[in-house]
């Protein structure tokens, strides 16, 4: 099993959700985060004092998938979340040690 973390632009969340359900993903977790990438930030002014806006609001989607489904899921997210502008986001894939369903106690692939 792998964990796929995708950080996307907030207004792309609905498109990504639709694409994921079409690919067959049955569960995901969404959180609101802030961050920056290579483009860093830009300078703004508030009442004359200058400050840097570098932490930009983003949405993080976490999905746990079987090893075989990773490529399809990553491709679906990339297609849905791409706008071509700077700040589209990134997808991280990591190995997962274990999964448990709390209601039934199932473990492993059956719990995904």
């Amino acid at each position, binding site marked *: 099993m792998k964990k796929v973390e995708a950080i996307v632009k907030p207004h792309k969340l609905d498109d990504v959700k639709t694409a994921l359900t079409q690919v067959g993903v049955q569960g995901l977790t969404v959180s609101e985060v802030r961050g920056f990438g290579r483009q860093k930030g830009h300078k703004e*002014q508030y009442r*004359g004092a200058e*400050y840097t806006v570098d*932490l930009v609001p983003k949405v993080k989607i976490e999905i746990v998938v079987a090893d075989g489904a990773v490529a399809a899921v990553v491709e679906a997210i990339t297609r849905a979340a791409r706008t071509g502008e700077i700040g589209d986001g990134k997808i991280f894939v990591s190995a997962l040690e274990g999964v448990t369903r709390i209601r039934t106690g199932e473990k492993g692939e059956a719990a995904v």
Partner: protein
Amino acid sequence: MKQVARWFAGGDGDPSLQKKRMVRRSLAVWLALVALGWFWLIPAYTSAQDKKPEEAKPASTEAPKPAEAAKPAEQAPAPATRNDPGGVKTGDVTILGEVNVADPGAPPDPKDADYANLKKAYDEKKKAFDEFQEMNKREPLAAKVAAAVGKNRAGINMTWTLITGFLVMFMQAGFAMVETGLCRAKNVSHTMAMNFMIYPLGMIGYYVCGFAFMFGGFGSAPTLGGPPVMDGVWSVGGWNLIGTKGFFLQGEFYDMSVFALFFFQMVFMDTTATIPTGAAAERWKFSAFMLYGLALGTIMYPIYGNWVWGGGWCSQLGSKLGLGHGTVDFAGSSVVHLQGGVIAFWFAKMIGPRVGKYNKDGSVNVIPPHNIAMCVIGTFILAFGWFGFNPGSSLAGTDLRNAASVVNTMLASATGALAATMWIWKVRGNKPDTSMMCNGMLAGMVAITAPCAFVGSFSACIIGLISGILVVEAVFIVERKLKIDDPVGAISVHGVNGLWGVLSVGIFADGSYGDAWNTVPGTVKGILFGDAGQLGAQAIGALACITYMTIASIVVYKVVEVTVGNRVSAEVEVEGLDVPEMGAMGYCGMVMDKASESPVSR
């Protein structure tokens, strides 16, 4: 003496208990003094005041002739109640157009320094009174109609005063919104609590002794049909300094015209009181704030208020020194806003900047507001309330000049907002800042507060324009040059523009209103219309305000610092004052983004 001092300092021994003991003992002594005053000194003093006019009359009947002893009812003088607690006698014969046909009372004492003027005034009043009595005998219906007209006039004026006072009270909500919107979400409950609590706190202080200090010697409230019961004042060399009558509104002050005046003045005092809460927000202890609130209503505000509005020395500069009409302040640019701004300046300076506001090299970090919508709504509420603040200060619905006050207020607010927006957008920065727009509108209204009834519409526009530019520049200077952290811009909006407003009376007053203001004949004119003395009087008044309020602010701050301490600890400030000071979060249940609430830096 040493033992008393040691007792106050909390005794010897455990230092952790010492501070607690010291605070408790000082508070206990203070409360004992208040109780002493409440139950003994003040009732004794006010009853002594009431006795005085009655003592003068019986002397004339001490030696009745034997023939007249048979008519005791006609010999005994009428009881000298001049106040009207039921509101039924007012207006019957007290005001009748321009002629006051009230009983002129006792003739003036020939030994009085001002006997010639007093005798002349007394003779005029006696003549009017006698004529009215004559007409009463010949044409009773005309007299009744005249009395009804007088009563209605008093009624219209009192309704006007009360309703506009209600609008000014609503400005408390406006201030609360503006200040809370410009602070951070973690301090919502505390900032709101300060703005809420100042309303009842200042009120009580003003009721106990503030109004007495400020209007004790005001005379009468003529537009409200008021009898001349406000006649207790302490003066030095003919210069009035402080009122001495009317504590707890007892005795002769239990009169409906006095009550209406008290209400109107009290909501103005509350406006002053709520200005410094914005400048010292986000790091001020609630207990320290409450002590300040009491001090302001009782002592700080009323003294200068007496000097300008209560018949005190600033208003006497015209009649005594020929400086125009003395310090003229129609609705309070100096009495309300400059006073509040000076307190805000010193409190913000002494309490120090918020944690993280300034870096070690002196550069400024931005602490963004958490709710601009609150700030804008609050500004509109204030603008609405200002329609009570400015025109209401005529205390007369029958004074048609109120229309000018309203129009001038509107125009100044508009030019103020536009000027501030354009200045910070095109001259100083690259984006029109919403909070600065709001500050600009408020600055315009602060500046027009003193001159609103005395200037023409074009002057009002100019006053607003300059105030919009002033507020932007003042924010920059206060924040960057003086290194004073003012979260809401209170110093720039109220202090700087209060000063500009009170001076602009001496510049732009065009002589179309204000006849007999501060007992000086002729209308109020500024330097552009021929009266340089007016500007001089305005400058003296402004200087007196700044000097007095500086001393008062520093004294009060230091006293509070020694008793409870003003500033919260750094840990409490960084966590947010809501839970440590008020016990519960303002936005409980909402996720607060830590990354957006901490100071944003270069």
